[in-house]
């Protein structure tokens, strides 16, 4: 059922005076989490921007119960909480809200373990494509060619194809989402909450600080990532792969907005804009992702069986 904006709750989930930067995609995303799931949520947050956004005890800048936890263990702490709630007969949504570092790099082991055990949690990777909280260092999810403080000349490795790695874990639900498409994200969250087992949502989260763009452009850049085919939106549900409607038309490269439009709005892609070789590398990274999609659409998980 399509989500009508008018039906969404109007409560404040990000409090005024929280410590996020202007235009922060994380506070946008967090708001959508509660709009989707209501008050039936406990967050587990490993180190990252969101541990700072909450601000200083005893207050909190976000209206959520939160267990903040060390970097490498968000998924396992969440699994422990969920186990406790299950023992008590409570049906709460335990949601991990972790950055790309806490997910693809230092936190990968515990997330992969929780996925393999099919622990009943929703894991959201808020992918702002670098370690922003420590000052914009490259991560396993930084795109090829992008500048960060540890890749001055542009990253020389490609982005880890994490959503596909999670599909390979054969969990009941994997989806990509974007802060530029809140309705799509909310729908996916609600679907995830209705499924028992491990749910993974990869949320694209353009960060004005780390990506070097005007804080007023967060939503626009998020949308451009989808429209240029850089970040396709899809779902994998109980063995079925489906490109989301917002990304459907961009399967055809001809229909996509020009990549340069996405790149030139951001400071971090200067190395790519200056060097055709790097641009080629980034294009390859994007093409490879679409080949995954093509393969999954064509053969689906039957190929795995």
């Amino acid at each position, binding site marked *: 059922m399509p989500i009508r904006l008018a039906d969404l709750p109007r409560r404040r989930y990000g409090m005024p005076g929280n410590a996020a930067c202007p235009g922060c995609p994380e506070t946008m995303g967090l708001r959508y989490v509660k709009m989707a799931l209501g008050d039936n949520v406990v967050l587990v947050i490993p180190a990252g921007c969101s541990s700072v956004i909450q601000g200083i005890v005893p207050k909190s800048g976000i209206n959520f119960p939160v*267990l*903040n936890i060390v970097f490498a263990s968000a998924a396992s702490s969440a699994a422990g909480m969920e186990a406790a709630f299950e023992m008590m007969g409570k049906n709460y949504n335990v949601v991990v809200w972790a950055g790309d570092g806490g997910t693809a790099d230092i936190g990968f082991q515990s997330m992969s373990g929780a996925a393999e*055990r099919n622990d009943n949690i929703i894991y959201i990777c808020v992918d702002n494509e670098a370690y922003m909280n420590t000052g914009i260092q490259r991560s396993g999810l930084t795109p090829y060619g992008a500048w960060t403080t540890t890749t001055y000349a542009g990253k020389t490795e490609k982005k880890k194809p994490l959503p596909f790695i999670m599909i390979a874990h054969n969990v009941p639900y994997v989806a990509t989402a974007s802060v530029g498409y809140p309705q799509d994200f909310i729908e996916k969250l609600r679907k995830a909450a209705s499924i028992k087992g491990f749910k993974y949502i990869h949320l694209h989260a353009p960060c004005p600080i780390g990506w070097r763009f005007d804080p007023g452009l967060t939503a626009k850049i998020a949308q451009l990532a989808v429209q240029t085919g850089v970040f396709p939106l899809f779902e994998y549900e109980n063995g079925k792969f489906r490109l989301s409607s917002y990304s459907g038309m961009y399967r055809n490269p001809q229909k996509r907005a020009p990549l340069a439009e996405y790149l030139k709005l951001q400071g971090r892609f200067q190395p790519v804009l200056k060097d055709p070789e790097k641009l080629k590398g980034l294009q390859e990274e994007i093409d490879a992702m679409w080949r995954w999609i093509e393969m999954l659409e064509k053969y689906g998980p039957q190929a795995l069986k």
Partner: protein
Amino acid sequence: MTMKALTGNHAVSEAVKLARVEVIAAYPITPQTTMVEKLAEMVDKGELEAKMIRVESEHSALAATLGAAAAGARAFTATSSHGLLYMHEVLWWTAGARIPVVMAVAARAIGPPWNIHVEHSDVMDQRDTGWIISVAQENQEAFDLTLQAFRISEDPRVYLPMIVTLDGFILSHTVAPVDIPSQEEVDNWLPPRRQPYVITPESNVVMGNIASDEDYFMMRYSIQAAMKAAKQVISEVDLEYGKAFGRSYGGLVECYRCDDADYVIVITGSWAGDAKKAADMLRDKGVRAGVARIRFVRPWPEEDLRDKLSNKKGVIVFDRSVSFGSYGQLFSDTAATLYGTKVSMRGVIAGLGGVDVRPDDIMSEVMDFVGRVEEVGLVYEPQRWMLPKKYAQVGKEVGL
């Protein structure tokens, strides 16, 4: 009550079951493994109504235990050696969260080179994390301490996590008779779980976000205050346990023939039994010896030790671990405790990596110490290494 022949590991598993633990998360590591295997079996057979999370690492094991405890469940994990070191970060986080959790540690050496035998380096490495750390001498005590650990750590005056240490293989894998109370008896003695806060949608509590430097400082202070309060709680629990189940150990320190002793051996763990034997043998030889067995490494039993040891001629401390570049950890703490007294002291590092130390060996070291004290009066020898026999020559050359 029933007597059962149990390994130390299985004795702990029985206690965990009787405590009605609701969530267990663990990763296998020698020599802890059989403890959680037994628990997994109990859960699968329906004897224990708990959720078992078979995690992919020790870091996750303690994180899952912490998550479960923060959500309101009585939770347990266990580990050893490298596993405990891998958890180290989460140990800090658990104590800082002031969340009661119980963990058993089958004490074992740390590589390289690989060595699976008993040593206390793994658990001593956790002294500064804010966990209460107890050490059993026997399987029965490992059982008793595990039950007590829930009561101690969940006491509102404490609210700190607690480790129960049992020596790898010497206790973990050795069968001994263990007196097991009935479920009803334990239910009457162990109150339902208490904890400082619970994180749920209803409670809307946030744990672990940023604090001001001053608040951070005060939270550290509160852990120290809780450690202090824990001393009282540990003694109370020891006495009440004695009333309910017939076994009391003397609180933080167990004193064996200390009262009239001139020389006291300070030691912790299973080899305290050998030290007691050595004390008996020394007495036969006319040396009035006793043993102060440290049952709790943290909180450190400062008052008890000062009270018991400050009028002795000599105190000799045996450490099964070392703080490299300094001394054995028990020695350092004992020396700090006895600062300003006129007691002779010697620190002995022995038995690392499971190297056998017999009552004879302890006795001759004490005899040597007694000789020195009689000869020169006040002696302060903070570290002597009791090297394995085939390396005795090396010792002479290096002369530590």
